[in-house]
């Protein structure tokens, strides 16, 4: 059993690709990965990928940012040194809250945005000097590539993918 052999089916049109994805799913071949030069609308649904939870993360990060801003300003302006600055009431947080709202808002947005982006980088394993993973340079320009694992059914798979409108079907040994 050649466990690390994969099929690379290459397409040059996103409609054909979508069609091929539907056929592949219907034939119960497991799609390892798809490489496209641009976002193909509906591809994630066709592949049956789970929806992202990045938005939920962002909401939580925003709540953290709001808390940080509130605790910080409450400590500095109210607890630590409640100075009279231009007659602003610093007896309690709520009394001077309107003045704190711009900071609270910005911190919420700051935390939500930046932590979400960092989460995205970590989950997608993206960082500077990371080695690029595209299996075929053309996939960043004008070709679409579907990678499907081979389990002793090489001939059958090649035949199947040639029937889906692929411009090229290759069998690759993956390390």
């Amino acid at each position: 059993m050649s466990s690390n052999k994969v099929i690379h089916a290459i397409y040059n049109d996103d409609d054909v690709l979508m069609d091929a994805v539907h056929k592949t799913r219907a034939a119960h071949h497991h799609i390892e990965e798809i490489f496209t030069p641009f976002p193909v609308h509906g591809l994630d649904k066709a592949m049956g990928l789970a929806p992202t939870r990045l938005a939920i993360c962002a909401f939580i990060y925003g709540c953290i940012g709001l808390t940080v801003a509130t605790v910080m300003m409450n400590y500095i302006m109210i607890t630590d040194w409640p100075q009279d600055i231009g007659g602003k009431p610093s007896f309690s947080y709520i009394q001077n809250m309107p003045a704190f709202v711009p900071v609270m808002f910005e911190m919420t947005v700051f935390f939500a945005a930046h932590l979400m982006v960092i989460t995205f980088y970590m989950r997608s394993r993206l960082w500077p000097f990371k080695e690029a993973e595209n299996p075929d340079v053309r996939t960043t320009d004008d070709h679409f590539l579907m990678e499907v694992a081979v389990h002793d059914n090489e001939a059958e798979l090649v035949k199947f993918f040639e029937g889906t409108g692929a411009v090229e079907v290759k069998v690759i040994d993956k390390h």
Partner: protein
Amino acid sequence: MYTFSSKLKTFSFVLMIVGILGIGYGFLTAPKDIHEVEAILKAEEAEHHGGGHEAAPVHEAKTESATHEAHTEPVAAVTPSETPVDSVAHDTAAAVAHTAPATHAETARHDAKASAGHDEHKEHAEHVLHQLQNKPWAALYVACLFFMLIALGALAFYAIQQVAQAGWSPVLFRVMQGITAYLLPGSIIFFILLLLSGFHFNHLFVWMNDGVTEVGHENYDALIAGKSGYLNFPFWIIRAAIFIAGWNLYRHLSRKNCLAQDEATDNSFYKKNFKMSAAFLVFFIVTESIMSWDWIMSVDPHWFSTLFGWYVFASFFVSGITTISMVTLYLKSKGYLENVNSSHIHDLSKFMFGISVFWTYLWFSQFMLIWYSNIPEEVTYFKTRIEDFNLPFFGAVAMNFVFPILLLINTDFKRVSWIIVTAGVVILFGHYVDFFNMIMPATVGDRWFIGIPEIAAILFFLGLFIFVVFSALTKAPLVPKRNPFIEESKHFHY
């Protein structure tokens, strides 16, 4: 074609009848003269003193005797006896202790002060009389304005959709036209209310009082007199007539062209509507701003704010969108809008969410700038609101911001009917309260209450709104036939 269900029609009539009865009750129970107000004030005072603490009667008796002494002693001009009176006052009633020395200080001014106190009481009673007489009028005014502006907000949204050539919304155009049908009857009733104010049937607008601009008159007010070049009845009512006529003209022609486009062989009516909508939006934003000064800000003629027009706009714009969303959901639940899918609903919910945040932004910007600089001539506006309208003032922020932002932030929730209806009801109530907060402090002051006159006015205009809107919806097919974007709109998905 939509058929007005008889149940809904009956419901709207019931609302109108109940509303009229309640409005009538409000006018009948408003005090007619100063004597009734005196009685009310006495009753309130008795309740206030008797309700609280056991020591109240004793305290009052002491106060009375102390003030009595304080009043008589100086007249007798016995200077040495001042000290004992003072000490008695200090010992017995703390409240009097503060006033008594002041009364003692100048014997000569005493009599003048006593009569001034009497005048003050009379003035206070008159003030309360005006507030209580304003109450049913203000209730009617707020509800009438609110529902008319909902129709206007929907009209502005409709014009924006036309001009933006939105691909998703043409299936909702007829719903929007149904809602904007209320603009005509709503604005006519509103115009009558404005006329009644102008002919002194009520005291909603202080700048209309007799003699405010006459130097030497007891009502003379230099600040208002300085603004009388703008705030005078003829100019004001002509402006109102022009605004209302302009909006209704656009609504009428746009609807006519939209129906004509259904039967046309080319897109000329569509293009006409496009151009007209663009022109309307220019007219709208100018008139909307002036309208907000004329009809809302001028109840507080001593106060002004530059972003007020935008603030009012955001308030009724989001109400209009919410109403579109709710009428759409109702019609869809009855099976009349088969082309409307959850993506259309999702888009409307996004607008509800986004414009709610926009309203909050303007609310806060207006509040914070004035709170921060705390200039006395501006800050009284918020001082009365925070002191006398605490719950409605901050409750409006909770209903119009906190609630929708937490509920509608979730993408899945924006497609669930009952969640949108819940959010919509809260948003609409919140913006009613918002308009309540704008009008009431200047017209009824601390005498406000959301009681029978207020609720009845809402019910009456709600009934009228439902009746007019759903009658209008029966008059044309719910899907435009030949709109260039209708196919895209039918297949819209997000």
